C-alpha cells in the first residue's frame, strides 16, 4: 500500500540526480530508485511512528479526572521550559498533578510499552518463532511467582525497607526462570535447537505456575492483591519507578538495536547464518540476556501486561515490512504509543477506580490485530 503511493512522488526526485552522470543502464537506474525508495520509506516510517508516539504522550498527559482544561496542559509544559514564560492559567496544585502524577505514569507506560515490544520482537527473531516473547521462556511466570511469594509471605513488611521488595523479587525470579529455561534447553537440545528451548519454556512456565497456584491456594487472602499485580497497572507510578526502570530499558534497547543486522541474518536459519560468518549461539545468548533483563525490569514495576510483546511487532511487520532494521525501532515507538493510549481508558472508564491495563491491551489489541490480519490476507 505504501509502494503504490510513493513511487510517483520519488521518481521525479531521482531522475535529475542520475541524469548528468554517464548514461546508466535502465536496470541500474530502476534499481537505484527502488533502494532509495526503501531507504526513504524507512525514514518515513520512523517519522510517522515518532509522531504517533508524541501524540500518544500528549493525549496521555492532557486526559485525566482532575479537571484540567486540556489545552492549558501543553501551555503549562511550555511555560516550564527554560527561557519561556507563558501564562497557562494552571495553578500550582494542578501543575503538581500534571508533573508528579500524570507525567511519570505516561513516561513509565512508554518505557514499558517500548521494552515489551522490542523484547518480544527480538525473541521472535532469535527463536524464529512468531509466537515467542520473553513471557514464553518464563519471564512472566517467574515474576508472578516472585511477587506472589513476597505478597503471601511478607505481607505488610517492607514498608520501611529502602526498596520495595515485591518488584525486586519479581525481577530476580523472572531472570532466574529464563536462565533455568535456557540452561535446561541448552543441556538437552544443544544451543542450536530453538525448538527445545521453547519446549523447555513451556515446561518451566507450567512448573512455576503450579508453584504459584499452590502458594495462592495456601494464602487465599492475598489472591486479590496478586491478581491486581499480575494483570498489570501503571497507577502507582512515580518518578522513582521511572528512574528504576529507565536504565534497564535503555541498555537493553541499545544492545538489541545493535543486533538488528544479526537478527536479519538469523531469519535464514542457524546453519546458513553460520556459513555467513555469524556467531549464532553468541548472538542468541546476548539477545536473550538483553531482552530478558529489560522485560524483567519492566514487569517488575508494571506487572504482567500481556499481548504487547506479540502484537506490536506483528502489526509493525504487517504494515512496514519484516526487516529487523525497521521492526525494532518501530516496535519501540509504536509499543510506547500503544501502552500510553491503552492506559487512558484504564484510568478514565471506571474513575476513580482503575481498570487493569492488561485487560485494556487485550480488549483493544486483539480485535485490532484480527482486523489487520483479515485485511492483509484479503489483499494478498
Amino acid at each position, binding site marked *: 500500500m505504501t*509502494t503504490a503511493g510513493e513511487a510517483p512522488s520519488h521518481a521525479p526526485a531521482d531522475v535529475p540526480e542520475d541524469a548528468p552522470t554517464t548514461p546508466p*543502464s535502465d*536496470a*541500474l537506474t*530502476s*534499481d*537505484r530508485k*527502488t*533502494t532509495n*525508495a*526503501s531507504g526513504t520509506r524507512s525514514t518515513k516510517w520512523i517519522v510517522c511512528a515518532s509522531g504517533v508516539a508524541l501524540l500518544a504522550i500528549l493525549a496521555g498527559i492532557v486526559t485525566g479526572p482532575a479537571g484540567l482544561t486540556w489545552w492549558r496542559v501543553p501551555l503549562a509544559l511550555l511555560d516550564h521550559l527554560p527561557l519561556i514564560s507563558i501564562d497557562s492559567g494552571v495553578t500550582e496544585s494542578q501543575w503538581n498533578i500534571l508533573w508528579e502524577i500524570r507525567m511519570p505514569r505516561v513516561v513509565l507506560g512508554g518505557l514499558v510499552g517500548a521494552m515489551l515490544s522490542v523484547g518480544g520482537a527480538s525473541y521472535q527473531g532469535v527463536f524464529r518463532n512468531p509466537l515467542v516473547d520473553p513471557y514464553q521462556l518464563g519471564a512472566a511466570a517467574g515474576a508472578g511467582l516472585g511477587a506472589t511469594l513476597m505478597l503471601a509471605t511478607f505481607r505488610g513488611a517492607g514498608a520501611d525497607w529502602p526498596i520495595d521488595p515485591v518488584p525486586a523479587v519479581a525481577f530476580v525470579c523472572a531472570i532466574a526462570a529464563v536462565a533455568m529455561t535456557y540452561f535446561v534447553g541448552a543441556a538437552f537440545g544443544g544451543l542450536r535447537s530453538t525448538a527445545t528451548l521453547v519446549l523447555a519454556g513451556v515446561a518451566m512456565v507450567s512448573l512455576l505456575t503450579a508453584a504459584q497456584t499452590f502458594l495462592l491456594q495456601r494464602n487465599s487472602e492475598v489472591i486479590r492483591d496478586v491478581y491486581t499485580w499480575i494483570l498489570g497497572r501503571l497507577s502507582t507510578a512515580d518518578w522513582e519507578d521511572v528512574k528504576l526502570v529507565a536504565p534497564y530499558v535503555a541498555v537493553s534497547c541499545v544492545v538489541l538495536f*545493535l543486533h538488528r*543486522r544479526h537478527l*536479519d*541474518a538469523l*531469519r*535464514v*536459519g542457524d*546453519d*546458513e547464518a*553460520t*556459513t*555467513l*560468518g*555469524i*556467531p549464532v549461539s553468541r548472538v542468541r545468548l546476548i539477545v536473550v540476556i538483553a531482552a530478558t533483563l529489560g522485560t524483567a525490569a519492566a514487569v517488575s514495576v508494571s506487572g504482567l501486561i500481556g499481548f504487547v510483546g506479540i502484537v506490536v511487532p506483528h502489526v509493525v*511487520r504487517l504494515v512496514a*515490512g*519484516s*526487516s529487523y*532494521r525497521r521492526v525494532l525501532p518501530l516496535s519501540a515507538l509504536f509499543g510506547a504509543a500503544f501502552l500510553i493510549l491503552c492506559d487512558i481508558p484504564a484510568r478514565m472508564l471506571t474513575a476513580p477506580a482503575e481498570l487493569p491495563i492488561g485487560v485494556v491491551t487485550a480488549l483493544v489489541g486483539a480485535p485490532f490485530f484480527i482486523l489487520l490480519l483479515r485485511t492483509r490476507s484479503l489483499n494478498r
Partner: protein
Amino acid sequence: MSSIEFRNVAVRYGKRVAVHGFTASVRSGEWLGLIGPNGAGKSSLLQAVVGVISSTGEIDVDGAPLALRAPSRRAALVAYVPQDPMMPADMTGFEYVLLGRAPYVGYFGTESRRDRSMVRDVLDRLDLSDFADRHLGHLSGGERQRLVIARALATEAPILLLDEPTSALDIGHQQHALDLVERLRHDHGLTVISAMHDLTLAGMYADRLALMHEGVVVSEGEPETVLNADVLAEFYGVRVTVHREPDGTIVVIPRRNSLL
C-alpha cells in the same frame, strides 16, 4: 583464486561415521563433483567445510588451515549454497542477497554504501534486479535458486560449495543454474565443489568426479573413468548404460528390469 585441500577429513554423528578419511585436493578454478548414493557423506563433507558440523582432519585453503580462521574470514573464503535453503517469505530479494555481505561487516556495524552497491551489481549481473523489492514468497523455484547463488556471489568468496543445487528444479532451470555457475567460475576463477545426484549433469560440468560410498571415496578421476557402468552398478546398485556422445559428453541412462 584459491585452492582447497582435504587431509583425512572425518565427520561423525555420535557413533555413526558419515565421512571417513576424505583426502583430496582441488586446484584453483577447478570444479570437483561429489557423487554417490544418498547417505554417502557428500552433504556432510560440504557442511564440515563451512563449519555447520564439526569434523576432524585438516581442511586447508591456500595452504592455511580453515579451522584457525575467524568465522567471518572463513565465510569470506568459502560460500555455500545449501540443498534446501531457508527463504523467509516476507524477506525481499535485496535483503536476502545483502546477507552475503555479512562477512565484511563489523560486529556492531551495518553494511556500507559499497556493500549495497555491490549487491545491486550482483543482482544486475544475474538479471535479478526486478526481484530486489519482491518478497521471496512470491518467487518461483528457479528465481529463488538464482537468488541463493547471488547471495553466495555477494560474499566474493573464491570457493563455492553447492549442495544438490538443482534437485528442486526442472530440467530447463537445472541447466540454467549450472550454466550460471560455470559462467561465474569462468569469469571469477571460482573453485567449485558440488554434490550432485544427476550423474549426466555431474559429468558434463565437473572437471573431476569423486564417487563416495558410505563415507569413503571409492572412485576418483575424470568423468569418463568414474562414470563406468560396472562401478555405478556396484555402488549405486543400479542397472545403467553409459553412453558416450560424439562430442565427448557422457550420458548415464537407467535401465528398467526386463523381467518386470
